[in-house]
Structures are given as C-alpha cells and as structure tokens.
C-alpha cells in the first residue's frame, strides 16, 4: 500500500513531463482535439499547462510525503522488483525508514515548489526560455531523485542517479544564452560525472566481494579493512562531490545561481540531501561496519566545509551565490555530525551514535526547509526587482512586508536562533560532541572538542552573515531604483510555498519531538540502536541523553518569552502621553541623509575581511580621481573588490594543467598519417595475439 503511494509519486512526477511534451506536439494532434486546443490556445493554454504541470508535481510531492510518513510510522521494510531494464537484471526496490525519511524531505520541498512555481515561471516567455523544456526536466529530475531513494541494487541506483544528474544539468543550463551559465552547467556536469564514476567504482569494490549487484548481496559482502576503506574513500569522493564538500564544492556556487530559483531551491534543499542519503546508505547500511578513521575524515572534512562555506558565503554579494555557499556550510555541519556518529559507532557507543545520527538527519531536514525557503524568497526578490546583487537592495521590508516576514523566518532558522528548527539540530550536535568523555582514544577526545568549537564559530559567523543579508536586503533605505520601485508579490501561490516552509520551520522549532521521534526509528533501523523513547523525546522537554545532562523545552521558552514581552508591552504603553511619534532620522544636524551613506554589505563584512584575510584571495583597489590646484581635491573615489576562492588556484588549476600536459603528450601519437594509424592497429593486434597465446 505504502509502496504504491511511493510509486504513484514517481509516476506523477514523470506524468508532469507529459503536458510539456504535449505542448510541443499540439499542432500534430488529431483534428477534433486540435480544434479544442486551438480554442484555448493563445490566452489560456500556457496558464493551463503551468497549472497542470505544477499540479501533477504537487500531487507527486503530496504522495511522497504520504509514502514517507507511512513508512516512518509503520516502520515496515517493503521490497519489490520491477521487470524493467535488462531482462536478467530486474530492478530491485526497497522502501525502508531511511528512504522514507528522505521521501518526506523531497515531498515537502516539491510541494512547496509546486505551489510557488506557476507564478514564478510566468515570466519565462515561449521561445527563448521554453517552459516545456523546464517542466520536462523538472519532472525527470524529481523522478530521478525519488528513484535513487527506492533503488535496491547498484544498477538501478546508478541509472536513477544519472537521471537526476543529467536532468539537473539541463535545468542549470536552462538560461543558456549567457556563456557564463553554459560554463557553470558544464562544470556541474563534469563534476557530477566524475562523482558518478567514483560511486560506480565504490560499488564495484563492494561487488567484487559479493555475488551480484543487489544491495542485499552487497550487504553480505565481507571486506577486509583496506578494501572497505578504499570503497569508503571512493564513495566519499562521489557523494561528497554531489553534496558539495570542500574542496569539491566548486560547482555549487556556480550552478545554483544560474538555475531558475525554484530549481536552485530543489537542488540546494533536496539534491544535496540525496547525496547524503547515498553516503549513509553506503556506509552504514551496505558496508555495515564503520571505522573511527572514516568518522574522523568525515568530521574534519565537514568542519572545513562548514567554516569555509560560511566564510565564503559572507563575502558574496550575489544573493543566490551566497545561499549556495551557505549550503556548503550546512552540508559541512551535517557531515561533521555524521562523522561524530560514526566515531561513536565504532567505539561501541550505539546510543551516542544514534544521537549524532539524529542530529545529522534532523539538520538535513531543517536545512531542506529553510534553504528552500530562502531560495524561494530570493526568487521572489529577483522576480520583483530583477536584481540579485544585495548591495543594490534595501528597504524592501516596507515594500514587500509578507516576503520580508517569510525571509526573516528563514534567516532566523539558518542562524540557529532558539525557537526555530535550525537551533534544535545544532543543539543536538553540541550535545553529541560533549559526550566525548566516553571515548578511549586520546586523540579523538582532543579533536572532537576542537570540531565543536569550530561548529560554534560557524554558527556565530552564520548569524553575522544572515544579519547582513536580511539587513541589507530588507532594511534601511533602498539603494537603487529597482528596489525603490519594488512591489509586494501578487501571486498567492508564490507566497504560499514559502509560507508553508516557514510554518514548518517554526513548528519543528517548537515541537522538534514530532520529527525526532520519526528519525529515531530511522536510527533504529540503520544503526540498530536508537534513543530510548518517551522520556527523552517528549513533546515538552527534549533531553537526548538524560534529564540531568541537558534539556531544552521550546514550548515553555516560547510561553515565557510571550509572557515577558506581553507584560512589558502592556505596562509600557498604558499612558496615552507616550504614544510613539514619527520624526526624521537624526542626521547630526547636517541634513540630507542619502541611501549611499548606509553601510553596504561589503562595508558590513569589512572587519571579517580583515580578521580572516587569509581565507580568501582578496583584490581590493581604491582609485582616487583628483582635481583642482595641485591635484589636491578628491573628486571621486572608485572602489573595487574581487574575492576569489582559494580552491581554484590551489587545486583545480594544477589539475587542469596536468590534464593539458598529458593531453599534449597523448596528442603526440596522433600524427594524422593514415599509415601510422594502421601501424598502431597492427602492433595492437600483435600484442594481443602474443598475450592470448
């Protein structure tokens, strides 16, 4: 039954491609239909199509949510086989709690996007940006992600994985008239394929110790530690590339900004999580036995990604690029905590491992919510102001109050402030890290606190980053004509999508137990250990280890805050003589405050730029135009700032050079002379014959 729901969701997402195909073929339809469609044609046809596409997609999301919840609540493991593909290799399907949890994430994200979509894509006119193409690949992309979660053999997994990667490539390349976009899309495709290659190799290593490629066979494979580690490294490379770990994150800030906003929301909020799913499935489920060295590697990579991601995010002025870097940060946090969980698992502390696992998955869930919300918000802003540079914004909160409210909730969640969901998962992460005393290994005991400290720094920097984002975007005076003229969005759907996500952010911030209870079952199934239910995860108090170690009660905190604010609000406003008066902003008596006097985001981040100067490659130039007698009056000051990622010159350019060099070496054998080529074939033949004999 539940499996049928899951199938329905996949089929519906495939179905959402159909109207798109219909759109192109509408002139070739049989005559009686054609008449009907042409009647609709000019005015209503595109609107109808949009509704149909996103309606199907939304249904698909809804079914995914139902399927996910169903499997999480019942806790069944369902298997099935579909006789598709090669005749002797039917596709194995398995739907368990872990898949169900990620189904839930995808379902929520897709539902929100399908509410948002119809309004957002209405600006893409036919011709240059055909909606048909967009919807076709969106449907394939979602279906691919869902199939990855269902796959229970390596072939099926890779097919679904490639479907997801390739479909998303076309989505990134959607606005292909801009060469930068094409370059970004190509980079994405390249890295996705290298990653896929690594994953195939990882499966290959496992399969060579097992009979067959089904996951059941792979689970039974007994590997030596060395081979298991090789498989782990390959999987980490492959899935890490998709997830965007530093230093293989470079495609992310390139690809996310150029895709349409609702697609970047899906990519950042959901696709990265599918990579996370792959890694969890591979390490905890298929390999089975984890080693602390792997956990340490994950933890270190995660910490570096978290810090690097947020530091790079802070320096971006393109809103979507900033959000993309912040995804790197959050993925880093998730991997770090997952690494902790692995370490605890290998040290025979399954309860603590379950705690870390809980924190990692809950953060993944939360990140899907708030990052989707922020990307959709960025889409609204782009839609209304045609601008993504935050230094040209300002004052939007008065022009777009509802969007402002939703965006604020997103910013507060991502900055992990109490009462919101992001805080709960970081709190759990800290609780996990603080249990380090049970570990025997001295080095681990000293490294884990350092990782916890980096997590603290990351959280604080994230708060600074998103104060900057919200403050510069929405507050102050408008810095350009576009933002001055901006209007609140009129399409209700475009507000409903983000509003749904914002509501969930708040809901799970106040009642995290709802979700944690479900994830606990996932941990139970994957790790074979879970937190004791009931007392530790009640709806009122959250006490993951035990009540005398740590507890957090968001509902009581909320009530307390409301009481405190209510009392002072009532008390202070009772006298009519103290009604608030509006007046001009204080300008020190000089008069004429202009928007250009405000801090811009580069000004806001200047202290950070100076303190962490070595993190970036900074090219900062100030040029003064002088005039007057002796050139003493400064007429104008030009300031330019270029900030670059270290990973390009340090890592990728050497690789690029090496590849070019080898290509040139290989090129030498290409003489162009046909007789030489014949000679090569001849020599090959001889060698082959010699080998065979």
């Amino acid at each position, binding site marked *: 039954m539940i499996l049928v729901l899951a199938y329905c969701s996949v089929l519906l997402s495939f179905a959402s491609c159909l109207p798109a195909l219909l759109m192109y073929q509408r002139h070739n339809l049989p005559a009686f239909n054609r008449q009907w469609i042409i009647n609709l044609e000019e005015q209503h046809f595109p609107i109808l199509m949009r509704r149909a596409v996103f309606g199907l997609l939304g249904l698909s999301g809804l079914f995914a949510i139902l399927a996910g919840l169903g499997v999480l609540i019942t806790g069944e493991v369902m298997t099935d086989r579909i006789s598709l593909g090669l005749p002797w290799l039917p596709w194995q399907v398995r739907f368990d709690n872990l898949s169900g949890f990620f189904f839930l994430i995808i379902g929520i994200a897709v539902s929100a996007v399908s509410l948002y979509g119809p309004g957002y894509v209405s600006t893409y006119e036919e011709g240059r940006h055909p909606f048909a193409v967009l919807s076709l690949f969106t449907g394939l992309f979602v279906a691919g992600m869902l199939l990855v979660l269902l796959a229970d053999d390596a072939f099926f997994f890779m097919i679904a994985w490639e479907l997801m990667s390739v479909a998303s490539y076309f989505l990134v390349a959607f606005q292909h008239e801009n060469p930068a976009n094409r370059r970004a899309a190509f980079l994405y495709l390249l890295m996705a394929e290298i990653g896929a290659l690594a994953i195939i190799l990882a499966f290959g290593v496992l399969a060579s110790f097992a009979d067959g490629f089904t996951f059941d066979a792979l689970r039974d494979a007994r590997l030596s530690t060395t081979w298991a580690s090789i498989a782990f490294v390959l999987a980490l490379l492959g899935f890490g590339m998709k997830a965007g770990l530093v230093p293989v994150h470079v495609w992310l800030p390139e690809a996310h900004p150029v895709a349409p906003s609702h697609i970047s929301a899906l990519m950042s909020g959901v696709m990265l999580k599918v990579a996370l799913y792959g890694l969890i499935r591979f390490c905890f489920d298929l390999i089975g036995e984890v080693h602390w060295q792997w956990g340490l590697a994950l933890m270190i990579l995660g910490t570096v990604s978290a810090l690097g991601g947020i530091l790079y995010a802070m320096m971006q002025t393109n809103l979507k690029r900033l959000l993309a870097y912040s995804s790197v940060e959050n993925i880093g946090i998730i991997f770090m905590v997952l690494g902790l969980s692995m370490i605890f698992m290998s040290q025979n502390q399954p309860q603590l491992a379950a705690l870390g696992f809980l924190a990692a998955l809950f953060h993944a869930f939360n990140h899907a919510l708030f990052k989707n919300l922020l990307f959709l918000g960025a889409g609204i802003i782009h839609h209304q102001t045609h601008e993504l540079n935050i230094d040209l914004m300002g004052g939007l909160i008065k022009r777009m109050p509802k969007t402002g409210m939703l965006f604020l909730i997103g910013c507060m969640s991502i900055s992990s402030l109490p009462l919101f969901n992001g805080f709960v998962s970081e709190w759990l992460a800290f609780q996990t890290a603080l249990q380090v005393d049970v570990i025997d290994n*001295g*080095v681990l005991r*000293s*490294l884990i606190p*350092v990782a916890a400290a980096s997590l603290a720094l990351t959280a604080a920097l994230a708060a600074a980053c998103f104060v900057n984002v919200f403050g510069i975007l929405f507050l102050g005076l408008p810095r350009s004509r576009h933002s001055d003229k901006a209007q609140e969005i009129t399409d209700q759907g475009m507000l409903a999508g983000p509003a749904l996500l914002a509501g969930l952010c708040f809901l799970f911030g106040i009642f995290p137990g709802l979700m944690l209870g479900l994830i606990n079952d996932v941990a139970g199934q994957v790790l074979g250990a879970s937190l004791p239910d009931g007392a530790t995860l009640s709806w009122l108090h959250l006490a993951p280890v035990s009540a005398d170690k740590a507890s957090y009660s968001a509902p009581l905190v909320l009530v307390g805050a409301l009481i405190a604010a209510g009392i002072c609000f009532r008390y202070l406003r009772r006298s009519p003589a103290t009604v608030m008066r509006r007046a001009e902003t204080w300008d020190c008596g000089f008069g004429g405050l202009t928007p250009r006097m405000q801090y811009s985001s580069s000004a806001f981040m200047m202290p950070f730029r100076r303190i962490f100067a*070595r993190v970036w490659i900074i090219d900062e130039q100030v040029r003064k135009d002088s005039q007057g007698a002796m050139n003493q009056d400064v007429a104008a000051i030009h300031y330019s700032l270029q900030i670059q990622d270290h990973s390009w010159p340090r890592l990728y350019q050497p690789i690029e050079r090496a590849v070019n060099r080898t290509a040139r070496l290989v090129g030498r054998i290409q003489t162009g002379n046909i007789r030489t080529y014949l000679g090569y074939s001849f020599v090959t033949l001889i060698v082959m014959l010699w080998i065979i004999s």
Partner: protein
Amino acid sequence: MNIEQLDFYTQAVLSLAALVGLTSFLMLGQGRLLRLIFVFAVQGFLLALTTAVAAYSLNIHHLYISAVLTLVLKVIVIPWMLRRLVLQMNMHRDVEALKNNSAVMLGGASLMVFSYYILHPIVQTSSIVMLNALAVSLSVMLLGMLLMISHRQAVAHVVGFMSIENGLFFAAIVATHGMPMVVELGVAFDVLVAAVLFGIFFFHIRTSIDSLDVDLLNRLSEVDK
C-alpha cells in the same frame, strides 16, 4: 581515576602544569620583547612554585634549595639580564610583526595534543599524573622550539632556548622529584653561563651586522645565489 580523587599535591601540580603550558603559549604569541621576557619570568616563577609545592608535600628538603635557585636564576637574574640587554640595545620599542600568528597558535595546540599522543604508550606503566605532567613538559619544550622557529629576534631565541630548559626541569621535578643536587647545580650554572655568553654574542653580532634579526644572518652564507 578522576581528578577529584587525587590528593591536593597532584591537583596543584596539574594546575601548575596547565599554567606553565599557558605561559608557553603566551610566549609564542608575543611580539614585544619586554613582555616576552616578563612572561618568561612568570614561567620561571611557576616552576619555582611547583618545586616548592613538591618539596613541601613530599618532604624533600633539597628541593627547597632548587626552588630558591630557580627563583633567583630564572625569575630574577636571567630576565633582568635580558631586560637590560634589550633596553641597552634600544630594542624594547620594536614590535615584531608575527606572520601567521594564528597558524602558529594552532600549530602549538596541535603540538600539545601530539606530545600527549606520543607519550601515551611510553608512560603506560606509571601513573596518569606523570603522563599528563610529562605531556605538558614535552609540549613546553616543543613550544619553545616553535618559538625559536617563528620569531626572528635573537633575544626571542634565547628565551625559547631557556623555556626548553624549563620544560626539562618541570619534567624532572614531577617525574623524579628533581634531579640529583649536583646535576641541578651544574645545569643551573650552565644556564647562567649560557645567558651571559648569549649576551656577549649579541653585542658582537650587533656590532658586526647592525641588527639582531636572525634572518639577516642569511647574508653570511657564502653560497652564490
């Protein structure tokens, strides 16, 4: 065995060990020479205190002598000499801009962990307190070396060298309740002589190359560039 089950002497030694480690860190990040020398004196004082505590609680009388010796030499005489040297050469206003200070600090922290890690198998047989205190003294030595590597002023090198000796001394006090008196006197004398010799050398270096920046000694290389 947790710290609350240990006796007061051990707790005190551990706390002092922590503080000695801290002074090493402080020296590492210090750009001003006079302050560096001051921190060095503080470290000497902590050593003297450790020796005194050990002497008191273990009731070993000759340790009192070495405590006094440490106090006189490392807290008063050597810092005073170095200070006079710096003032005479008018270097007290120089601020050495430390390059990648935070990297050095992080390196220091990881050295601490590293020394704990390598001592772990060695001291398996003896008590935990010993392991911990030895780890600190080893890291004090390593930090002293790092100080010499990261600083360019010759005076800082002397301080680094002396703090290596401090680390050894701390280890001796904690692990074996001090060295035999003769050895200790000899070492103390050596250190004093070293300090004097360094002072003389400095004057010579300064008169010949007009600076105490050790990077300038590179010029003495006779290899053609």
